[in-house]
């Protein structure tokens, strides 16, 4: 199914090809998306960033995107962009890591930017957002808002990025509510509204009264709204889908970063680097805190401020794993970035087993 939308994208590319290159000096920029632009979440936010580039450099750039590209198809899609004169290519999903590196090796004069990965090359930079900072704030809110003391978490896959989010969320919740429990359901999909909604229903049936999600559609949020419970949006502000249920949402803000990187290419100053920005850098923003009492709201704002100024880190040590064993602290007073990026354990207080 995804291939098909991809085919449509490839077709659009082919059409782009047939247009004679009127302006040779225009910088051509390509994007590879994992979902449809209309997913309301992850891919939507990247596309907002792409449009920010067009606004920032009118007449000087040309952007193309290929949507719904599966990992298996990605190296062909990336190579296609590289072959058609795109000099800067953003690959916006973790799964594109190896394909990006593979294509990059064949096109040394093209610059690549891979989101959420950890492998770089001379012409491959990486960038990501400290999503877990927002998750911590969500945890604080959820810990305060829950009456049943059971919070639900809809995850996509048990990969480090999702696991780190769950842990950070749980640590935030525990910081205000020592009795809080968490139930985790993996949908085994990033985007399947029906299944995501069913996962939320399953959690609600188990007595959960606050849901957070790490999948891309607003379906879990809608289920919470229908059940009169609370939830958090994912990647973008989803208030319109659940005006009474959405407490807040992580908002991924890619635009400023994209604009900065395009400027670097235009100025000839682009270099491979690794950027992992959070609340302080503005790459992560929280959607308005809504549907909660003022004291909870204040707590959320204060927590956000503390993380921004560096006073608080979600993974401040000591951290204990499920067996109560203290996790080795490699980053001084907090876990090292590499420990967060490769996180493969649940923290103390989570009863579920991490699927391997």
């Amino acid at each position, binding site marked *: 199914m995804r291939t098909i939308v991809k085919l449509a994208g490839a077709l659009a590319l082919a059409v782009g090809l047939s247009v004679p290159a009127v302006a040779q000096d225009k910088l051509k920029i390509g994007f590879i998306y994992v979902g449809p632009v209309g997913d309301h979440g992850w891919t939507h936010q990247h596309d907002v960033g792409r449009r920010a580039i067009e606004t920032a450099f009118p007449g000087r750039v040309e952007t193309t995107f290929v949507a719904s590209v599966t990992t298996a198809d990605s190296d062909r899609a990336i190579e296609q962009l590289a072959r058609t004169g795109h000099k800067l290519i953003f690959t916006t999903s973790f799964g594109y890591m190896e394909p990006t590196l593979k294509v990059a090796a064949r096109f040394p004069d093209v610059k690549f930017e891979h989101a959420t990965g950890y492998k770089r090359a001379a012409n491959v930079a990486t960038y990501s957002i400290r999503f877990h900072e927002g998750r911590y704030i969500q945890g604080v809110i959820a810990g305060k808002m829950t009456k049943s003391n059971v919070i639900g978490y809809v995850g996509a896959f048990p990969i480090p990025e999702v696991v780190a989010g769950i842990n950070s969320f749980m640590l935030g919740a525990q910081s205000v509510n020592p009795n809080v429990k968490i139930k985790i*359901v993996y949908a085994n*999909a990033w985007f399947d509204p029906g299944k995501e909604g069913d996962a939320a229903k399953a959690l609600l049936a188990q007595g959960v009264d606050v849901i957070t999600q790490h999948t891309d559609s*607003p*379906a879990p949020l809608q289920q919470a709204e229908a059940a009169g419970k609370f939830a958090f949006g994912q990647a973008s502000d989803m208030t319109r889908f659940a005006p009474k249920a959405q407490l807040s949402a992580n908002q991924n803000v890619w635009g400023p970063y994209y604009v900065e990187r395009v400027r670097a290419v235009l100025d000839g100053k682009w270099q491979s680097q690794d950027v992992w920005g959070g609340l302080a850098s503005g790459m992560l923003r929280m959607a308005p805190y809504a549907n909660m009492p003022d004291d909870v709201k204040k707590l959320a704002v204060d927590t956000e401020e503390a993380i921004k100024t560096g006073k608080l880190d979600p993974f401040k040590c000591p951290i204990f794993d499920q067996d109560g064993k203290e996790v080795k602290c490699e980053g001084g007073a907090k876990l090292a970035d590499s420990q967060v990026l490769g996180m493969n354990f649940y923290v103390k207080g989570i009863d579920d087993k991490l699927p391997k």
Partner: protein
Amino acid sequence: MSLTEAILLTVVAAATPLLIAALGELVVERAGVLNLGLEGMMAVGASCGFAAASLSGSTVVGVVAAIFAGMALSAVFAFLTLGLAANQVASGLALTILGLGLSGLVGEAFVGTRLDPVGRIEVPGLTDLPVVGKLLFGHDPFVYIALLLTIGTAWFLKRTHHGLVLRSIGENHVSAHALGLKVLRTRLLAVLFGGACAGLAGAYLSLAYTPFWSPGMTAGRGWIALALVVFASWMPWRALGGALVFGGATVLQLHAQAASIGLPSQALSALPYIATIVALVLMSLGRGRSSAVPGSLGMPFVPDR
């Protein structure tokens, strides 16, 4: 609401789109035509249904629009495979690609908008009955339509003259033609019915199940419905049971996770397909006695003089 009730309600909701789409395809295949374009027709139904319901403010208008959209797309398929006797497999796959693309085009203006979900039909007094109340009288209208469709399809195929005609055409179109039966006309009507059902199943997704539109929201349910037809060995009542099994497999593993029961969720996600393969094996083992596969399935028919 007890946990069991909650689980059963989710199973029914998950099974409904599969059942509606599969019943349509079942009739199509019983007439000897294989339409692999279910996923595309469902997607078009979902987007057109959502668009029409948003513009008119009426769910009924949305549902009707979805049904006609599904039929329109199936008419393209009918033109290719019945009119031009084109290869059904290739045409069906093309229909899926076309449908997914078209659905994105139609739905583009409606990305990010929402509708109120379709309400449940609740009968005062009966819905509040213990245990069975919510299970019998607490669903949205689509669930009851699916049930009526099952009864109707089973009755039509088994008990009516037209049903017999349709089945005999699907079994052997050359003999049926020789008997003077209208092969192409019957097949056209069957294909249109299949399209209508797929459109309706799509409308269920975007209007009731998850009331918003997003490209790719069918997420492979058309393919599961196709597998369901085979699993049901082309029998409407078995399709009902199969839809509950397929929907149940997906939903139960989610509930198992929520309850922290350590079941391998990936394996359970694959259960519908494994069940279909098992059903196919059982059917081919039993082929000596009688075959469930319509004899002319997938074969183009060109009437001779």
